[in-house]
């Protein structure tokens, strides 16, 4: 029952619409729309509560309590914050390129939301099971560089410009180890479809067969979302807030929420590619698959937050050096070893 909760809801909706006598195509379109809206609401609520989680994690690691006044245990804090930010004026700098300036925070959410359409949250729970799912996800997520650059350029401020130049430099150079890290898994599976990749991990998760690839992917992904220790895009102590410097009110909140939604994307992706997706470990099948998926995803999100409150920010030259001199060669070596290993296994017919 619980296992097929969401699938059941979709089927119930389909049969309900079937009873109305409308054409099947329209029914399918409505079901798809409901799925996508549900995912959208889920992302937005989650992004809001991840801010709360971040503050709580930070507080607990510093022996504080964190937000605890608004609502029970402070759980309504993000909504109070969003309410405040909506009420605030969106200040537009005088020499800003107004159209681009206002377009950037609107568009920043688009790639993130698009990506969630292909992520399988549980057994048969992907809104769209695309046969090039991984490729689609990588292609779309790299778009967010563009919108951060738009925001930074249109602000017409030196801090925004420096920050957005760092965004471009950092995200483009870490895109490479990210993709190369995933390539090892894709070579083993031989498919870009996410459900195939998860199905291939039924017995052994890829984190055990591809540990180096996981580390490379995770490091590059943290850098890709501009999180500490790679947060020199924001770099509060150097360039105020990077591309977000000139943004106020809800425009700033959009960037902020997009950051957390992106963390969700990379952690969901790591879960799918390396942690076996919805598969239950140790045969604990009685817990529904989607709960397992979320447990793994949130564990990774916790690690991302822990990284932020553990490590200091690295320098720009260290960032570039680490990306190009360590991660990329490691990823290439990993691909080489994976290829050789696969051939050896094929030769001995295992």
């Amino acid at each position, binding site marked *: 029952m619980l296992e097929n909760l969401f699938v059941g809801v979709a089927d119930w909706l389909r049969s309900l619409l079937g009873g109305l006598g409308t054409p099947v195509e329209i029914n399918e379109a409505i079901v798809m729309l409901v799925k996508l809206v549900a995912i959208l609401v889920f992302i937005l609520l989650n992004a809001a509560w991840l801010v709360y989680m971040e503050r709580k994690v930070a507080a607990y*690691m510093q*022996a*504080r*309590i964190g937000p*605890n006044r608004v609502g029970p245990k402070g759980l309504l804090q993000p909504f109070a914050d969003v309410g405040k930010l909506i009420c605030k004026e969106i200040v537009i700098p005088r020499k800003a390129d107004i159209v681009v300036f206002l377009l950037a925070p609107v568009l920043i959410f688009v790639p993130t939301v698009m990506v969630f359409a292909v992520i399988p949250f549980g057994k048969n729970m992907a809104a769209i099971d695309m046969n090039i799912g991984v490729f689609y996800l990588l292609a779309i997520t790299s778009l967010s560089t563009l919108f951060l650059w738009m925001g930074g350029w249109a602000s017409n401020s030196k801090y925004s410009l420096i920050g957005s130049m760092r965004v471009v430099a950092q995200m483009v150079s870490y895109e490479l180890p990210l993709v190369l890290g995933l390539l090892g898994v894709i070579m083993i599976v031989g498919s870009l479809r996410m459900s195939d990749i998860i199905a291939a991990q039924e017995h052994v998760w890829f984190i055990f067969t591809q540990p180096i690839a996981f580390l490379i992917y995770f490091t590059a992904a943290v850098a890709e979302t501009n999180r500490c220790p790679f947060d020199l895009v924001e770099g509060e102590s150097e360039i105020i807030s990077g591309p977000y410097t000139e943004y106020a009110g809800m425009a700033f909140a959009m960037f902020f929420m997009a950051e957390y939604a992106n963390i969700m994307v990379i952690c969901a992706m790591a879960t799918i590619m390396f942690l076996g997706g919805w598969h239950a470990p140790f045969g604990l099948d009685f817990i529904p698959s989607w709960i397992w998926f979320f447990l793994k995803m949130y564990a990774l999100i916790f690690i991302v937050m*822990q990284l932020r*409150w*553990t*490590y200091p920010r690295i320098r720009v030259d260290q960032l570039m050096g680490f990306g190009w001199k360590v991660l990329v060669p490691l990823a290439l070596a990993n691909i080489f070893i994976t290829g050789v290993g696969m051939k050896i296994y094929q030769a001995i017919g295992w």
Partner: protein
Amino acid sequence: MFGQGLIKGLQITWKEFWTKKFTVQYPDEQHPVPERFHGRFVLDVDKCIACSLCANACPNKVINLKREKVGKKQFLTEYVMNIQYCMFCGLCVEACNKDALHFSQDFNMNQYFYRDIPLVLVRREAPAEPEEEQAGKTGEKPQRQAKAKKQAEPAAAEAAAGKDPGKEGQ
């Protein structure tokens, strides 16, 4: 090398995550205050002889006291501290010969209105009749003290009414 320091750092933050939290949620709970804390002043009206040594000792001229002569004795009618100028140095408490002036442990003295800031410790009318005079001459010591206490009781009540602690901390 090879990320040993990174793992060590993660171990430390992981350990810290589960430690006891130090936050004291102030209005609901308070840190215990040391015994000799310099908080709000308390005047023991019975002991006070209105000698104004405390007012003289004060470097900031915070203490304003008024006294009237009732019979042969000085009678304290008003004891107001302009607490906004007080630096809680404690010279007045040290200067008190009769050990009448004390610190309490209450530090929450903020007021909503400026006019409420001065700390009114005593404000009372002097009795017209020096009723103590004869008793003081003839009576024995315990009797005198008992009488003085009787007189002080309404005074203490007035002092409490003059300064409502319930209004503080708003």
